[in-house]
Structures are given as C-alpha cells and as structure tokens.
C-alpha cells in the first residue's frame, strides 16, 4: 500500500509549503512575531512580501526552488503579512494565488505525478485512491464527502455531483480534476489561516510592509470594489423568483417556509425595514404579529445571534422549487442579490 505514495523531498515542500510535513524544514520552527524584525530573517521577510505582491499583481506565486529553505520559511511569514494588512481582499487574493499556482504545479508534475497527487491528498486527510477498475476511464477515485467539501461552490454543471460517475461512495476523477480540487483545499486552508480574528501586536517593520502591500493593492484594484444598494427599494429590479414571491404574498397566497425566508431575507438585505416586511405578511389569514415580528427581526439580524441572514443562492432555490421563470440575466448570476445589484445599476 505504502508504495503508491511518493516520498516528498525538500524541493517538493518548497513547492507546496502549506503541507503539514513542510514544517520540519522551517528555519525557525517556533517563529515568534518579534523574531520577524531580526536582520537574519530579512531575506525571508523580503521573499514573503514578494509572495503577497505577486498574488495581488498576477494571481500566481512563483516558486524559487533554488533557495528551498528560504522558500519554505517565507510561506508562514507571508501568511502573517496577509493577516497584518487586515484586508479581506488581499487575504482572499493570496489564498487564491497560492491555490492557482498549486493547480498548475500539480497538473504539470513530471516525476511520478499520480503518486505525488496521492501523497499531497493524504496530507490533507483525503480518501483518494487510484482507480483500479479497468472498465472506468478515470485515473482517480475520491470519497464523495471529500468531493463535496471542495466542489459545492464551484461553477459549472460538470462539478455537480449528479453529473458525475458515483459508485460505492467514490466519485471518479481525471488527474486534472483531482489537481483542481486539491487546489480548492489549499485555497480554503490558507483562507482559514489568514483570517485571524485577534491580531497580535506587530513590530513596526511588519506594519510598514503591510502598508506597502495595501498601497499596491489599492493601485491595482482601484476603488471600484463593493458598491452598496440604493436607499429605496426598486421593485422593477427584483429577480423573477423574488417578484413571484412578492406577488404571492401581496395577494395573501400561501408561501412555503423556504419562500418566506427567501423573500424576507432578500427584502431586509436590500434595505426594507422589518416593519415594512411585517406589513406585507399581514394579508395572511394565519398572520400572527408577534411571531412574524420575531422571525423577521431574527432574519434581519436584530435579534438572537445578530447575524443578518442573506437569501439562499440560486442553486438552493432551484432545489426547493422557489426558482421560477429565470430570464436572461439569471443565466449570468448565481445569487438573487447579485441580480438585483446588476439590474439596479443598469436602471440607473
């Protein structure tokens, strides 16, 4: 059994420094935040800065295998830098860039590629095996739970489980597909690591570098990010599913639980006040103000956990039969709020 896995060398860990096993090559195993300012680590800090900058500029992170030790050690430092920028855009971008690079590298492994993929997958605890059934033309078989954990947000019909060959708990995959899913695992892994809730106090050197990175990202990306919704509710920009729910509720017709939740969360997200939403439900014959208020305010994030709920995305609405009469714009979006945002913009 052991023979199907390929033993990774130091160079492999320089390529894939986020693997658990890479830790044994770190120059300073127990890196403290204060250590980062020491002159001995200057090279590593510089390389770490480069990693994040490349991510912002090219959505890739080059691999400098000739200095394998520095390369491996620069990865955790890059994580600290990305965290220190406190910008979720930069953090996500860094995770994405490392993931994309990994996809390329895994796909193009020349020496024992299948074995390398198996070893890589094992590091993340995947149940991945080589396909032994000669009747099936795929190279890999992956346990469906590992598959689902890494595909549920991927675009494209081909990733939907129902469109895959699934048998005896295994989803069959080509080598490229396996590499793609492993890179998703890398993206999730890094995103989790950089999203630190409570940041330590950073030495001035780190803060300075983080500022530099932020400036670069501002230049590159511009300030076009994240526009809010208009102040008033624009009914003409409702997606067909919401419009149908809205019509139903206005005429007092019965709505499913999912339907009520979708409509309420949509309306509170585009700025309708809970009071106005409650008024809408008043036409129901089983209307109960206390109950409705409790639920609407809960969804709006004014009660309980204070989380404001967002409506389910299109796929979920399809599953529960809420998606009706999709139009042309629906083909281009995956979430009813995106539909609204886009249509409002056009209307302006």
């Amino acid at each position, binding site marked *: 059994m052991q023979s199907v896995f390929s033993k990774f060398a130091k160079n492999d860990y320089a390529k894939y420094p986020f693997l658990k096993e890479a830790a044994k090559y770190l120059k300073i195993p127990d890196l403290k935040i204060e250590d980062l300012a020491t002159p001995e680590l200057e090279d590593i800090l510089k390389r770490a800065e480069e990693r994040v900058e490349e991510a912002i500029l090219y959505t890739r992170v080059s691999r400098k295998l000739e200095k394998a030790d520095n390369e491996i050690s620069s990865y955790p430092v890059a994580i600290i830098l990305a965290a220190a920028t406190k910008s979720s855009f930069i953090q996500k971008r860094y995770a994405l860039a490392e993931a994309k690079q990994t996809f390329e590298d895994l796909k193009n492994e020349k020496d024992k590629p299948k074995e390398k993929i198996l070893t890589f997958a094992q590091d993340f605890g995947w149940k991945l095996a080589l396909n032994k059934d000669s009747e099936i033309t795929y190279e890999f078989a992956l346990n*469906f739970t590992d598959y689902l*954990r890494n*595909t549920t947000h991927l675009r494209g019909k081909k990733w939907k489980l*129902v469109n895959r*060959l*699934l048998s005896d*708990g295994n989803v069959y995959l080509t080598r490229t597909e396996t590499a793609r899913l492993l890179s998703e695992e890398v993206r999730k892994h890094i995103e989790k690591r950089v999203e630190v809730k409570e940041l330590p106090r950073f030495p001035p050197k780190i803060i300075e570098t983080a500022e530099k990175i932020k400036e670069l990202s501002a230049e590159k990306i511009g300030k076009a990010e994240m526009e809010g919704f208009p102040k008033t509710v624009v009914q003409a920009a409702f997606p067909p599913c919401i419009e149908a729910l809205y019509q139903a509720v206005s*005429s007092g017709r019965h709505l499913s639980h999912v339907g009520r939740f979708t409509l309420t969360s949509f309306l509170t997200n585009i700025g309708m006040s809970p009071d106005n939403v409650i008024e809408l439900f008043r036409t129901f014959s089983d209307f109960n103000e206390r109950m409705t208020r409790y639920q609407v305010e809960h969804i709006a994030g004014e009660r309980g956990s204070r989380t404001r709920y967002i409506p389910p995305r299109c796929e*979920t609405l399809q*599953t529960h039969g809420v998606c009706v009469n999709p139009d042309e714009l629906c083909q281009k979006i995956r979430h009813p709020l995106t539909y609204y945002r886009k249509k409002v913009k056009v209307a302006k």
Partner: protein
Amino acid sequence: MSSQKFTERKFGDYYKGNDVSICVPTSIEKREFGFLLFERGMLRHITFKAKEALESFLRATTCSDVYHSCSYYESPEAEMDRKGWLGADLIFDIDADHIPTSCERVHDGWICGNCSFSGKGIAPKKCPVCGSEKFNIGTWPCEVCLDSAKTETAKLLDLLMRDFGFSEKEVRVFFSGHRGYHVHVENEAIKTLAAVARREMVDYVSGLGLDVFFHGLNEKNWRVMRAYQDIRLDDLGWRKRIALGMQNFILSANEQDLRNIGLRKSIVEAILRNKDAILKSLLETGTWGVIRGVGFETWRKIAEHGVKLQSAKIDTVVTTDIHRLIRLTGTLHGKTGFKKVEFPVLAVDDFDPFKSAVAFKGGTATVFVSDAPEFRLGDEMFGPYRSQKVELPTAAAVLLICKRRAEVLE
C-alpha cells in the same frame, strides 16, 4: 369525555404500558428533544442523559408527538444560537404529500379557512364560493399513497447503498407513523457535512440538475457512432440508472406516454414498431439508436424521462436542514396514533405499515364517524363510514379521531 381527552388518555396508557419500545438515538446526551403537548404548545431544548430518564418523562407527561434533533450539540439545552453544533445525521423524508397519486380525489378533503366551504381531492387555488386562498387540508394515510411512498423509498435506498456506498448497518429505514417513510444515515464522514453539501446529495437522488450530456449522451458521440454505447445497463451510477429508466419506459410506454414527453407522431410510431429491436439491441450490445429516423433529440428526451422515473421523490427541505427535529422511533404520531417503526432495509418490499405500526392492541370504543374512506388495520377492513355511530377497536377509533373524522361517544 371529549375526543381529545380520550386520545390523550390512550396515548398516556401506551407510554405507561409494557408494549412501548422507544429506540433512542445514539449519543442521546448530545441531542435536543422536543415535545408537542395535547394542550397546545411545544416544549423544546430538553435533554436527557440516558434512555431511562426519557422514558420516565414520557410516562409523566403525555405528549401528542415526540421529537429529537438529527443534530449533535455541545449544549443541547441552550438556545439555538448557543447550542454549539457538532454535526448531524443525514435524514431523508419521503412523504406521500410530495407524490401525486390517483386516489387523493377519493380520500383527501379540504375546507376553506374563510367560509368553511368544503370539497374532495386536492384543494383548488381559490375557494369557489368566497375566493379565499387559504385551506385546511385533510389527508389520509391510505395504502395506495403509502405504497407509492414506499416505491420512492426503495429507489432512495438503492441510490444510497449502491452509489453513495453506505452499508446496511449505516442506513436505517422507518415508517413515519403517518403518510411516509424516513431514512436515517449515521456515518462519521457524513456527520459534519454542511447544508450545501447535503443539498448536492438531495439533487443527486432526485436527479435535479442532471444533464445527460455528462453521462455520455451528447451530439458528438452521436455523430461519430450513430449510436450510444455510453449509457449501458451494466454501467454504474446514474449511467446505469438512465439506461434502466429508458429501458423501462420503452418497455411499457404506449403512444400517449411517448407523445407526453414531446415526441412527434411519426417518431412515436417508429419507436412502437421497433420496440423489440430497440430492447434487443440494448440487451445484446448495449447500444441505443439503432432505429432509422429516430435521432439524437428523441433519445435525449427519452433519457431525460428515464431520469424522472429513476429519481427518488423526497422532501428537499428536511435533508438540508441540519438542525431538524425528527420523530423519535417507537413514539406515536399525533395525527394517527400509529407509531414510528423501524424495519430492515432488505424487507422494504414486504413491510406492512398498517400491521407493524399499530400501537393500540385490544379494547374498543364507540365513535360517531362523520366521513371516512375504507381502510385496513392488520387483517381487518373497516368503513367506508358516513355520519354513523360505530363500535371500533381502539386503534381504529384513535386513528379516526386523530384524523378529525370522528368524535368519541362514551
């Protein structure tokens, strides 16, 4: 004695008696319990350290329905936001309400919530008298409906075991006590799956979003081979299921069935004329498309219909809700007085809910029945009844009272 008091007393007797066999979920201490009381209202966020504590609670408090969470929590007694979700079993609910059957006209009824006008069958969109759109629906746990639910359950079990690879030990199947079946899957890898991942499983078993293109049925293959060899009966997963669905459909379809899936008259005739050749070719060489004049689009439509036939019609909301409360096995259903019972996966075809789920043995009661269709309990037939006084075994009396079709008379 009022009908409600009568039912309440019978339910109480059941939980105090010797016939009760509650089957508690694994890790009982991590589950939330919920109880629906006869006197309206629900007790929630209740916890028990062990089965004995739960049983003595049930003896002391008479409930119409008893539930436990499919989820495991750090503090199951806390409010929803503070429970600390640890995971959840995978649950499927197959309810006759989601499967249209021909008998609904006979036994279901509706009453307008506004003017009390009533009728038989599926409720109309609007009340013909007052135009209101709110109805109280009266369903009935009938043999035909439950049989169709059982057919869907059998398809689901096959999907779970063959395609998802769950073992007989991990998959458990139950009669819900009313109009359907529950399937529970307990498995370590499944436990922590998020709602989105469960939704993908729902889509898989219900064939939602399936594009036959990805299962070998595409125009490119067609042009190259003029025939399909990719969808085969000896294949795996949905490929095999599509082939089976196509085979079954071709085998049994009449002219109208074929027209209903949008095929032209001339094509329908060509298919019917060559039925044997099509099926023979499929069995012997695993090839579709041997008939001249029947092209890609036709096969695509037949394949898509095959998907519909092979998919399992489940309640999509239940499976994706990772906080769901589900009925406790061995407890009574407030709408029937039947108990939720487990039966072996392999015995799904032979399982008889009207025998196994009967909770009240012995005794009789006299009731006045307003309206009830013919029904069976065990080996005995009852009804139909209409505005009449009748002495019935306790189980039958409780069923009619719970379904609001009768009032107790003594």
